[in-house]
């Protein structure tokens, strides 16, 4: 099993993976571009672990031991000795390709390199590396503490050994891995996409309004959150970017075409909960 895990990027997912790993007694080398970001992330991990102490999930000693397993780095070559590196940077193919080019040049050839991308092609990310067979996707879901699923994405050139090692790692973290082929949206996001796409079409065609559609999905469908409530929660700009990315990567597959309502909502600045207005209005709720 991996002894040293490198994590590139300290956004919500990067921090979440680091936290899961140190709790599973794996040493973590945490990379970001500057010390300020790294300090902020270790403070967040520490705070999250302390919350777990308060909830009786872990002991005070485990917090200390976990924090001691984290080393922060601002230079990618410092991750050279890691057995396994997970990239969790922005969803920008150029940024990711650049990171993998550096990692490929500065790590031992036996190290596994994985991306936590939710929508970009693993084959494309690994296209210009020397050893694409060791590159795969490891897609964690948000919120990472409670979401059990991890999609392990096999690129065109990823070998079985890489997939097997990643699966063992995901199991060690207490998550459920499933192997998926490198296709746009992988599996969970792709197959659930019609829930959002059809919700927007039904709204556009005035078949029902947002409250009705969410209510029907929740009560008859048994899905805990309605599509409009979900889009407001994740941010309509994010939902639009994901839908657009899925559509572009599928080379314009008509089933995945984003609805114009999303674009208009983004252009109106109605981005969901974070702007107090999305498909629902949150101003009154916040004022209370």
């Amino acid at each position, binding site marked *: 099993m991996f002894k040293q895990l490198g994590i590139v990027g300290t956004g919500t997912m990067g921090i979440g993976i680091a936290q899961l790993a140190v709790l599973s007694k794996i040493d973590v080398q945490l990379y970001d571009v500057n010390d300020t970001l790294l300090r902020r992330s270790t403070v967040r991990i520490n705070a999250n672990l302390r919350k777990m102490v308060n909830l009786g999930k872990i002991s005070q000693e485990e917090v200390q031991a976990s924090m001691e397993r984290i080393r922060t780095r601002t230079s990618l070559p410092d991750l050279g000795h890691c057995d396994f590196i997970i990239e969790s940077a922005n969803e920008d193919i150029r940024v990711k390709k650049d990171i993998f080019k550096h990692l490929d040049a500065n790590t031992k050839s036996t190290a596994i390199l994985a991306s936590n991308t939710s929508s970009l092609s693993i084959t494309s990310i690994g296209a210009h590396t020397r050893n694409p067979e060791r590159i795969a996707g490891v897609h964690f879901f948000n919120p990472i503490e409670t*979401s059990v699923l991890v*999609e392990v994405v096999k690129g065109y050139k990823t070998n079985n050994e890489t997939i097997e090692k990643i699966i063992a790692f995901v199991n060690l973290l207490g998550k459920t891995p499933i192997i998926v*082929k490198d296709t746009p949206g992988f599996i969970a996001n792709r197959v*659930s996409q019609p829930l959002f796409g*059809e919700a927007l079409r039904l709204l556009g065609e005035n078949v029902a309004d947002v409250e009705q559609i969410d209510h029907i999905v929740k009560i008859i469908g048994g899905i805990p959150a309605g599509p409009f409530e979900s889009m407001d929660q994740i941010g309509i700009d994010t939902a639009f970017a994901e839908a657009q990315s899925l559509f572009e990567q599928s080379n314009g597959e*008509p089933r995945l075409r984003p609805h114009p309502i999303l674009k208009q909502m983004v252009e109106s600045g109605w981005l969901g909960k974070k702007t107090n207005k999305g498909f629902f209005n949150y101003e009154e709720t916040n004022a209370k």
Partner: protein
Amino acid sequence: MKTNKKTTPKVSKVNIKATKTTSRNANLKPTPVRIFITGESPMVEQYAELCAAHGYEAHISWNEKPAQKPEFKSDSIKISNIIPANTSLAIELTNIDLLAKKKNIKRFDETLADTAPILSSSITITATEQSTWILGKHRLVGIAVLPTLIQKPLIEVAPTIYSPKETLEVTKRFFQSIGKEIEIVQDRIGMVLPRMLCRIINEAAFAITEDVASPQDIDTALKLGVNFPLGPIEWAEQIGLKQVYAVLTALHTDLQEERYRVAPLLKQMAITRG
């Protein structure tokens, strides 16, 4: 209830609430209200059980009898092709064989009293189009019915352009009497949840064809990754692939959009094993 306009026949006298002991003679056992249910298995059986459990006398028949004769918990369910006298309400549950549906709806209209509403599944053909088959257009209301969704405490209802308020009021009271609230949506193919659900199942079928993941893993992914109560394959098995295929085909024909094209795998499975 307001008096209806002269041109619209009344349906407000339907005694849907008769099963409840609301009369002055509360000690007397009320006569169960008689309803007639026909269409496709297993929706007919599922609706019969639900109605019987809420005090109705359900007379049922099928377009095609199920391979195994169903066993019912209630003796208020009677299998007969004859629509009995004093039937207060009829439910038509056909999504696949629309010729049989037309025959059923016409028979209801010719046999039932003018006050009896017809609640008809309208996810593969709109309620408005169905109402053109009959003279008593005022009494037909569309409902979204697929196997398994019947047990839920909410139902989508689609009035037609001919539905007076009275018909809707009776429909609402009927569903409340069997434990369901109603959500009134526009009369469109697929209505809301069946349209979404069938598209999700179709996308899963495309993904299986492309070998993106195994069917079991697809179910796991949707349940664990995006909190679906069932995976799309499990859903498809419960609903029945022939039903899913019928909804998608109707959507594709109606909307003429590539996005509703049925996955070849789904089509093959629907026509070979259902």
